[in-house]
């Protein structure tokens, strides 16, 4: 239960870190929060020759609002920094920021987000899970993140573990992979050769494998921020105990038409589920069935049935019929939660006990 010997380096500039990654590539591992890597090292399942500790790189601990949405061209400039402990509601994004991309981004179940985007929330590579427990922005995204964060491990794990590290590790049951996929989040990857952006959908490959190249560092993940009146989110997971990885989980983002006639008509939906394959998956067929009418209990049930038919049951996870039934239950629950979440926080307990979460803001 002790790691194999390795070299350790803690660079203090991003360029230095990227040069090390370029030089050592597969022989190196990146250490951020270490809450997945250290167990692998202790068990000798990971045996890197070099550990590159990025905890001393400046700026990566920032959690900040951006005017740019993660989808489409990204104009430079921040709407304002949130900081680790936001006290006051941040200023709204400039009118129209990201607005031109709404319709283009609003394709149902498409590659973009659910639309209704007013900006982004950039989560640097050293932002710990704990920082998201206090709703880092007042809208639907902040509520979603505040709801999800307490489901990631236990408090001492969340004090160290990072959101970006979770995405890089790509555990198929990890909450942030599922939520990043449902939300249409994008990661920023940097290397000595240049930088690029990938949606979480494009990043995730197979269990514990991503499209990150060995010389690349995930520097941040940017989630879209949505207009409060238009978007509601639902997240539900089943885990053996609090803090365990999910056995199965669902996350939905629903966008309604907003003010005017047909305000309650659903215009875009993203449904993602985890626990039924090597990575979380989107269910565009089930999502499409919800568009163009209000989200009622009957609509949720119909979409849940569509979702159950749409998944590919996983070997070794019980009878296929059981897996489909679990998906149906999770998706129906998540959709109902999104309707309750629209315009205000959903305070019901994740496991259905009706107990308010202690740490939800607002």
């Amino acid at each position, binding site marked *: 239960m*002790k*790691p194999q010997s*390795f070299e350790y380096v803690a660079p203090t500039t991003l360029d230095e870190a990227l040069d090390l990654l370029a030089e050592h590539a597969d022989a190196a591992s990146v250490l951020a929060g270490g809450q997945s890597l*250290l167990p692998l090292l*202790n068990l000798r399942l990971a045996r890197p020759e070099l550990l590159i500790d990025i905890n001393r790189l400046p700026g990566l601990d920032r959690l900040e609002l951006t005017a740019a949405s993660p989808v489409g061209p990204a104009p430079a400039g921040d709407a304002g920094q949130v900081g680790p402990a936001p006290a006051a509601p941040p200023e709204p994004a400039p009118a129209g920021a990201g607005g031109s991309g709404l319709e283009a981004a609003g394709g149902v179940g498409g590659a973009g987000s659910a639309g209704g985007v007013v900006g982004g929330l950039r989560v640097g590579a050293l932002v710990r899970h704990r920082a998201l427990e206090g709703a880092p922005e007042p809208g639907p995204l902040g509520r979603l993140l505040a709801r999800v964060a307490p489901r990631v491990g236990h408090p*001492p*794990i969340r*004090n160290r573990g990072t959101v970006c590290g979770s995405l890089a590790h790509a555990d198929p049951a990890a909450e942030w992979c599922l939520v990043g996929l449902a939300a249409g989040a994008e990661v920023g990857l940097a290397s000595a050769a240049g930088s690029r952006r990938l949606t979480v959908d494009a990043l995730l490959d197979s269990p514990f494998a991503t499209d990150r190249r060995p010389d690349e560092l995930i520097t941040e993940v940017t989630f879209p921020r949505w207009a409060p009146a238009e978007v509601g989110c639902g997240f539900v997971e089943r885990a053996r105990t609090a803090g365990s990885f999910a056995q199965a989980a669902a996350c939905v983002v629903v966008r309604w038409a907003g003010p005017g006639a047909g305000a309650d008509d659903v215009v875009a939906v993203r449904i993602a589920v985890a626990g039924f394959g090597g990575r979380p998956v989107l269910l565009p067929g089930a999502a499409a069935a919800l568009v163009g009418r209000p989200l009622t209990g009957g609509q949720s049930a119909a979409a849940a049935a569509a979702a159950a038919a749409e998944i590919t049951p996983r070997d070794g996870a019980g009878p296929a019929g059981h897996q489909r039934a679990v998906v149906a239950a999770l998706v129906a629950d998540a959709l109902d939660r999104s309707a309750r979440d629209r315009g205000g926080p959903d305070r019901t307990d994740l496991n259905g006990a009706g*107990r308010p979460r202690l740490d939800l803001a607002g």
Partner: protein
Amino acid sequence: MDIELTVDGRPRRVAVEPRTTLADALRDQCDATSVHLGCEQGACGACTVHLDGVAIRSCLLLAVQAAGCRVTTVAGLPVGPGLHPVQQAFADRNAFQCGFCTPGFVMLLAAELADAPDLDDAGLVELVSSNLCRCTGYQGILAAARDARDAGAAGRAAG
């Protein structure tokens, strides 16, 4: 590598390999044997200590990462006239059987109750589920956790 850190208020300078976990450095080189190693993979919480005041698993941190930091173990918890309120509650409630898990539970609760002093009973159950007691003495631990929370609330009301 030589690193300097503060352990329970005492400055320490230790030579460690990069692969040495903080837990091993504390136990083997800093005389902090209250830090117990159960699983060494972050599951049991017996090695929980405070790093700059924040509860962490010391088996999931390399000693070199703690360079320059302030580490507190159960032996270094700040006490007033008597024991720390969490320690006192554990003693009052006999919240231990073999005692192996106790330092981790005390450090977990000391940090989290400082952050969320009004945690409700259901929240305490979830919090206590962070660590493992292989004797399964959870009812005593929960009773102590409630006492510690209530003692904190009474202290604030009086003070």
